């Protein structure tokens, strides 16, 4: 979702982009970058006009080959591809496959041919949708949903990679009374979150999307390296004779499962089959062989694997991550997984990212491996832990959790009964993040904590910058690397875990009580809300408290991230995370924990966007801390909720430029301030008008 940063409804931006007089910010999906491919000039003209009327950013192209080259050149730029099926130079389905493999963008096919088999072909080739021509405006108005849905599915996969039980999540969602936290199929909370002006469609999409979250497979990111290993193994064994088990053995990649290999092998075989047909031959082969890095994604993105460097595969020492330069916005801190969003860019250009992610994963693994003595019986989030170790690393959202590894996941899950599984991919992540944040917060300035936060935040939100995703990945990777370094250097992972746990013990209740649902809630809005952070810079406000200082120092270490984030933020048009916060508001009954977590998650979400910078983390930590403190001291959930909300809001509003101290002050203000104030501000800034 990070990519949607550019869709943020920034009035000034909108005005400049869309030529508005700077009045109302455009509605939510405005600015969606669509690549329109149609060989018919009349259709092209009409469709382009329609899309522009929807306030989308349209690039037209009358040839598939040209479209592909545009997509390759501007990696990460486009959000969606709209393509005709029948084109003279290339079959639309072929284009679809290419896009799916290389860029994993949502593709919508169009044709006046409405024969079921053709439509079916489109869907099986991975099209997100199939629109029958003549196309009406209404059909185009909703195409953004596919982008959102796709991203969410990717996130979900990442999450699921932790083998979070769908049922658990749903259960969690169902259990929670809080409308706000119940993300699954809970449109109400979203409504509340969004307030008026919410687009019904949007809500529907989200609800629908939530219902779709089922993939529990860990999401393995098949980086170029990994794929190369795979290819070597397959070639040695012989394509026809290669069996996943043997391939796995030959690849010797830690953390890779036979299932991962099996599914990848299947895709590879399908690819080969397709490639072997005459028409595709030249095109595909050339493409494929020349770009191993291309994300080998199945067209159906949902089950595609991220090319993110499968962190498991690397054993690099954390230090090696250092070179990764900090500029990258790590939209997805996980570096590991980040690429869900931007695989192509990632794959093609950032080997280091891969490395980083690998490093990170190894760090995580280290962490994971360490006994988490304090882990309460959190079996729930074991998945998270697993995630950490598993391939999921690559997932932006999942990554965060993963990174923490088992330890983190454990505490993320909160030992208590709360089904920590996060039903929503987005929600989950945030939940996890928030949890980790809270944990960190409680810990007070643990550097490791901080880094962990960082990681988590990083994962969230990749700002939809124009810059190639790969960059983002790099950033993430760098973040991750930093995190990894942090994790590994200052203190052994289990210290962190222990610290967290210790704190967790006390605050566990809070956290645990946070139903996954609750956490998910913010993510429901994920696309939009998560990325808010990017725009708003790192919220460096500190909630105050002693831990703040320590965090600040930690944050300072990561200061570079902030800058980068800022940069990104300014460019990115993050969707406002605002919505995320909404759940909190409505979820007063959820209890502090939830709100806390929610806040965190929202923070994280936002923070995740490019801003994962330390400031953000710090802020979150502070918020969490505040929340925790507040919770302890106050019996008023509402208060907490407010705080959370406020904090959340604060997050967004804070620009990364604010010094930590300022953040701290601001955060204090927010926390202590009026709910309305915070909210109001946030609203002003973050509301994404749908």
């Amino acid at each position, binding site marked *: 979702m990070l990519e949607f940063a550019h869709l943020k409804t920034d009035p000034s931006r909108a005005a400049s982009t869309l030529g508005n007089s700077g009045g109302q910010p455009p509605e939510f999906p405005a600015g969606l970058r669509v690549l329109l491919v149609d060989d018919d*000039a*009349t259709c092209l003209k*009409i469709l382009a006009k329609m899309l522009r*009327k929807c306030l989308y950013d349209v690039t037209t192209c009358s040839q598939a080959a040209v479209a592909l080259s545009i997509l390759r050149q501007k990696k990460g730029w486009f959000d969606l591809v709209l393509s*005709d099926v029948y084109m003279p130079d290339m079959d639309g389905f072929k284009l679809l496959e290419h896009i799916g493999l290389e860029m994993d963008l949502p593709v919508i096919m169009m044709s006046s041919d409405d024969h079921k088999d053709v439509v079916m072909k489109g869907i099986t080739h991975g099209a997100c949708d199939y629109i029958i*021509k003549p196309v009406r405006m209404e059909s185009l108005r909703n195409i953004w949903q596919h982008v959102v849905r796709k991203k969410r599915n990717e996130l979900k996969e990442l999450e699921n990679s932790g083998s979070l039980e769908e049922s658990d999540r749903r259960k969690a969602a169902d259990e929670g009374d809080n409308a706000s936290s119940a993300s699954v199929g809970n449109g109400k909370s979203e409504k509340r979150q969004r307030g008026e002006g919410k687009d019904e469609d949007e809500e529907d999409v989200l609800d629908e999307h939530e219902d779709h979250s089922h993939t529990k497979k860990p999401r393995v990111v098949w980086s170029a390296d990994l794929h190369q290993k795979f290819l070597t193994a397959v070639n040695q064994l012989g394509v026809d004779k290669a069996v996943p088990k043997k391939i796995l053995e030959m690849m010797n990649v830690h953390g890779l499962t036979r299932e991962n290999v099996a599914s990848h092998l299947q895709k590879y075989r399908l690819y080969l089959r397709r490639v072997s047909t005459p028409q595709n031959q030249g095109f595909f082969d050339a493409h494929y062989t020349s770009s191993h890095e291309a994300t080998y994604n199945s067209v159906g993105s949902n089950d595609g694997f991220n090319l993110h460097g499968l962190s498991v595969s690397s054993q690099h020492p954390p230090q090696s991550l250092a070179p990764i330069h900090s500029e990258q916005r790590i939209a997805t801190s996980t570096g590991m997984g980040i690429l869900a969003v931007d695989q192509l860019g990632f794959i093609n250009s950032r080997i280091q990212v891969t490395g980083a992610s690998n490093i990170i994963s190894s760090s995580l693994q280290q962490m994971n491996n360490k006994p988490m003595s304090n882990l309460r019986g959190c079996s729930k989030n074991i998945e998270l832990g697993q995630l950490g170790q598993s391939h999921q690393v690559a997932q932006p959202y999942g990554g965060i959790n993963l990174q923490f590894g088992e330890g983190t996941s454990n505490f993320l899950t909160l030992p208590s009964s709360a089904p920590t599984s996060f039903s929503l991919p987005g929600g989950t992540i945030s939940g996890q993040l928030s949890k980790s944040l809270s944990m960190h917060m409680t810990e007070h300035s643990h550097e490791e904590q901080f880094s962990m936060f960082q990681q988590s935040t990083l994962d969230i939100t990749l700002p939809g910058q124009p810059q190639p995703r790969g960059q983002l990945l790099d950033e993430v990777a760098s973040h991750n690397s930093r995190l990894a370094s942090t994790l590994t250097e200052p203190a052994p992972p289990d210290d962190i875990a222990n610290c967290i746990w210790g704190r967790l013990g006390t605050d566990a209740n809070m956290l645990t009580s946070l139903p996954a649902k609750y956490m998910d809630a913010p993510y429901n809005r994920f696309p939009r809300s998560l990325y808010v952070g990017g725009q708003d810079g790192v919220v460096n406000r500190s909630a105050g408290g002693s831990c703040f200082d320590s965090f600040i120092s930690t944050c300072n270490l990561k200061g570079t991230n902030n800058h980068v984030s800022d940069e990104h933020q300014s460019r990115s048009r993050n969707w406002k995370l605002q919505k995320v916060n909404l759940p909190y508001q409505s979820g007063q009954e959820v209890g502090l924990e939830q709100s806390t977590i929610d806040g965190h998650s929202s923070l994280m979400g936002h923070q995740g966007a490019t801003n994962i910078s330390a400031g953000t983390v710090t802020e979150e930590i502070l918020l969490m801390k505040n929340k925790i403190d507040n919770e302890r001291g106050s019996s008023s959930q509402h208060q907490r909720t407010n705080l959370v909300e406020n904090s959340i809001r604060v997050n967004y509003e804070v620009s990364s430029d604010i010094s930590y101290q300022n953040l701290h002050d601001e955060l204090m203000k927010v926390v202590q301030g009026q709910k309305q104030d915070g909210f109001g501000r946030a609203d002003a800034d973050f509301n994404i008008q749908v």
Partner: protein
Amino acid sequence: MECSSLHRQLAIIKKNLFDQGFLDEQFYQLEELQDDASPNFVEEVVTLFFRDSSRLLTNIEQALREKHPQDFHRLDVLMYQLKDSASSIGAAKVKNECTVFRELCDKENLEGCLRSFQKVKKEHAILRQKLENYFQLQRQVGPVEKATRSGN
């Protein structure tokens, strides 16, 4: 008043186009796209359509005249393009005839294709004429006169 009678005339012409099935709902979509940024959008699109479709028709005609065996697949592809185009501007009758043609093509009924093609050509020409008149009148009425459903 000349103005109002022209308006009325325009409205009637438009209504007829729809009633008689020359244009369909899609044409309204085009009209809705017309705005200040592109005040002559509909006319531009229609002009573009006729330009491209004429070329297509020529190609199809040439293909039909080619020696046997007929490349029905190619014919089908060409006619598909025409149908695509026609449907995008709401040229209902043209689109329908294209569909008929394609069905005959599937059956590899050359004779039928030839006849069908003539119909396509004819509808194409008729529509072209009607729309040209329409736009001409519209220009006379004035740029403010945006073709709207109120014309019905």
